[in-house]
């Protein structure tokens, strides 16, 4: 039995949709952020799989950039969550609705 690229693509699709379900169903803002990290990682898996099967290193280069963006996003996002928690004493996204009209 040979591992073809479809196995990696299906695993990656599964992890991406688990992340989507987490974002849509969870109410804790930090867990929503962790689900977004899961989605970024599943996209990374696709990039690395194609890069490895095509023998081209540019896909792995893009994974490097995605990691940079994820680190920046996590830092800023968690700072926002801390700032909101300081004001409203909650991280439940149902109660954080100051931008909702």
């Amino acid at each position, binding site marked *: 039995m040979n591992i073809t690229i*479809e196995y*990696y*693509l*299906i*695993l990656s*699709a599964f*992890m991406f*949709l*688990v*992340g*989507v*379900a*987490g974002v*849509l*169903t*969870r*109410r*804790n803002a*930090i*867990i929503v*952020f*962790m*689900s977004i*990290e*899961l989605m970024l*990682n599943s996209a*990374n*898996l696709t990039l*690395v*799989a*194609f*890069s*490895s*099967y*095509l023998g*081209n*290193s*540019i896909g*792995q*280069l893009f*994974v*490097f*950039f995605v*990691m*940079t963006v994820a*680190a*920046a996003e*996590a*830092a*800023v996002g*968690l*700072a926002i*969550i*801390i*700032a909101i*928690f*300081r*004001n409203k004493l909650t*991280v439940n996204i*149902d109660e954080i609705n100051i931008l909702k009209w």
Partner: protein
Amino acid sequence: MNLDTILFFVFGIVSAVTAVLMITRRNPVIAALFLVLNFASLAGLYLTLNAQFIAVTQVIVYAGAIMVLFLFVLMLLRPENEQKFLESNPKTKIFAMLIAFIVFVQLVYMIFFVHPSKNISKDLTKSLNAGTIEAIGRELFTHYVLPFEAAGFLLLAATIGALVLAKKKFD
């Protein structure tokens, strides 16, 4: 069954199961720890794909730095356990799961319909060469030097932004 297949299934099953456990645990700290395990098994998958540099970066940046940041914030904010799955907004949640399932089925159908392994097969020496730090660094510092500088600038901006946001007390 060769070693490649066994390793793929071990790491793949671990990463899929921990992803599901991550979004179903009610205690956020346990969810974060399952996410660490998921990142570690993804690093293993990268190794089966001959991407050594990315595997090491995954462990250092994701499972190390980013998850430590998440756990810090979780333990600073002591968020309470979430309610049971269907206690609040059950209709929205069931609808969301349904949408996610339909999109997953669609993606699997597309992957089998396009059947990429028909055109793409693994060339071991090429694949090994693509994953070395030498090949990645050569691309990074010749053709992609501008995005590299932009990434550095992005990190600087994120550092300043995080400092300003966490320091300021707005009302």
